[in-house]
């Protein structure tokens, strides 16, 4: 065709200044600009129903092809606990001098899994949902928060299973069980914050998702999921700094809080000092810091 490269195009676009001035005169705003922090919070709040609906939908979709359907929500954690009981309780018979070892272990596993899967889901929150990010306009923080919420819902099923296990192993119902609620709220805030941090990193460098399982596994082994930090630190063979680090590790803090709340033989003496302060501090630090860190890159998500 003769005109394939025919230039210039027959439009006379006004000069840039004119267009900018025209836009300003009619109060147009720049498309896709990052909103201010208060505005961002407002937008996010306006999407709260989407966040919860998306989390629930993901959770439901998970087992929708299975014959037993939603029964797996409870079966899954129960089987998980059974495996850990089989390995640590029966095969190795390692109790680490911990009373009520099975409830101790299962609580640790469930609470740890909550943090672990929130972070794993967080790394893929943006990079795994590019279709959504590129098609619809919403505050992107909705995605990592929604995934963390999905894990929280999952954990509530696990907690139901946990209560069955606790009662089966003769742990009495106590008023202190109520403390599980603030502990979970704090842990959720912490998880959501860390999810947002890794979501931003994962959006820029998807390779993070490959690396994260190794980081998380290491983290799990130092968090006292299968053993009691208290027993180790009380031997006093460790340098003071290591003791402090072990005790302040957020995962360990949340796990110990939950054990303290649920298991009567896990006394306050086994808790690290200032445990509620540490739990709150980590939640605020990760929650607020993660949110701001995520918001800072809001306009860049979805660029591929």
């Amino acid at each position, binding site marked *: 065709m003769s005109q*394939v490269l025919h230039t210039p195009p027959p439009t006379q*676009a006004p000069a840039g200044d004119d267009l900018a001035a025209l836009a300003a005169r009619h109060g147009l705003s720049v498309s896709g600009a990052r909103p201010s922090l208060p505005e961002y919070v407002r937008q996010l709040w306006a999407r709260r129903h989407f966040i919860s609906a998306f989390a629930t939908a993901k959770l439901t*979709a998970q087992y929708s092809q299975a014959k037993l359907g939603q029964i797996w929500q409870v079966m899954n954690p129960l089987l998980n606990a059974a495996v850990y009981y089989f390995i640590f309780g029966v095969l190795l018979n390692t109790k680490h001098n911990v009373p009520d070892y099975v409830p101790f272990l299962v609580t640790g596993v469930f609470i740890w899994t909550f943090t672990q899967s929130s972070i794993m889901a967080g790394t893929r929150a943006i990079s795994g949902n590019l279709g959504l990010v590129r098609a619809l306009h919403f505050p992107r923080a909705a995605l990592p928060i929604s995934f963390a919420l999905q894990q929280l819902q999952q954990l509530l099923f696990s907690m139901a299973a946990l209560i069955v296990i606790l009662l089966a192993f003769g742990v009495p119902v106590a008023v202190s069980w109520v403390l599980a609620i603030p502990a979970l709220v704090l842990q959720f805030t912490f998880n959501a914050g860390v999810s947002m941090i890794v979501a931003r990193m994962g959006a820029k460098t998807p390779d993070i998702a490959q690396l994260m399982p190794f980081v998380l596994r290491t983290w799990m082994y130092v968090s006292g999921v299968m053993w009691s930090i208290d027993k180790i630190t009380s031997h006093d063979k460790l340098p003071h700094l290591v003791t402090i680090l072990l005790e302040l590790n957020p995962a360990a803090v949340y796990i110990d809080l939950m054990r303290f709340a649920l298991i009567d033989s896990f006394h306050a003496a086994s808790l690290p000092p200032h445990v509620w302060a540490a739990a709150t501090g980590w939640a605020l630090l990760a929650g607020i810091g993660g949110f701001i860190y995520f918001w800072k890159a809001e306009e860049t998500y979805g660029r591929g």
Partner: protein
Amino acid sequence: MAEQTPGNPGHPEHSEQVPTVVADSVDIVYRVNGTGAGRGTATAALNRILRRKQAEKAAGVRKVHAVRKVSFVAYKGEAIGLIGTNGSGKSTLLKAVAGLLPVENGHIYTDGQPSLLGVNAAMMNDLTGERNVFLGGLAMGMPREQVKERYQDIVDFSGINEKGDFITLPMRTYSSGMAARLRFSIAAAKDHDVLLIDEALATGDRSFQKRSEARIRELRQHAGTVFLVSHNNKSIRDTCERVLWLERGELRMDGPTEEVMKEYEAFTGDKKPAPKKPAPKSAAPKPDAKAAGSPEAKAAGSPEAKAAANPETPAAGNPETPKVPLPS
């Protein structure tokens, strides 16, 4: 170009023109990892991670310049068609107007938040149609009460329940036509300020197409401005009074529908310049072999042509999905 539109029929009520979208020499560039020099090797990948900005080229990051220096002003009450052969940057431009893709240079100013008619991404195949209506509606930013209120309208419009109670079945059991109809119905249920439609009219059977075209006209009356990307010349003629023609990311023409379409059809060669014949039924007039082949033919001659055919330009085939590593 502001002067080109007032004479058009279709929005006589707007005597004073209010701009809703202003694009000011917009450039959009995609960066694709793992192509070009040293592609796929471990060292190149390492380079890319370590020296992100400085050594993009050395590390095999390829830039695809999808939209170049496009400027236009869209006014309230206009329906604007976007045409161009595959890979000319139409969808990319729409995404940038919607604020979903960052621009490299220039600015896009909008009145309110333009929305792309693309709800597909939020929907989950394993869930029932019913839950997807809620999820899709919420994802588009409709308040929960509004979704509830419009739920029945959405289902009725989609016609999913015409042949039985299918809305309570998982979407994976739907035929592709049914799923597409439900998606369009959800997307069209919201009131939009500036509405961007990317190839949405080709879905469903004939009766559904008629309904959806009617719905788009209705949306246009509420919406400030409608942009429509389509390869179906007939639906462009039916819905739009102004057309932007993009070719290789450049704005080639901007004017009243009939004028631009005439040139475009001559360009794609699928019709004689005389524009009176009925448009073909098939959706997309493919760019013919001559049109696609000619840049190379001309590249030998003019320097412009060389610039246009350099590796930064999307290959004639596929920049609709430029994120996929291009074979080199």
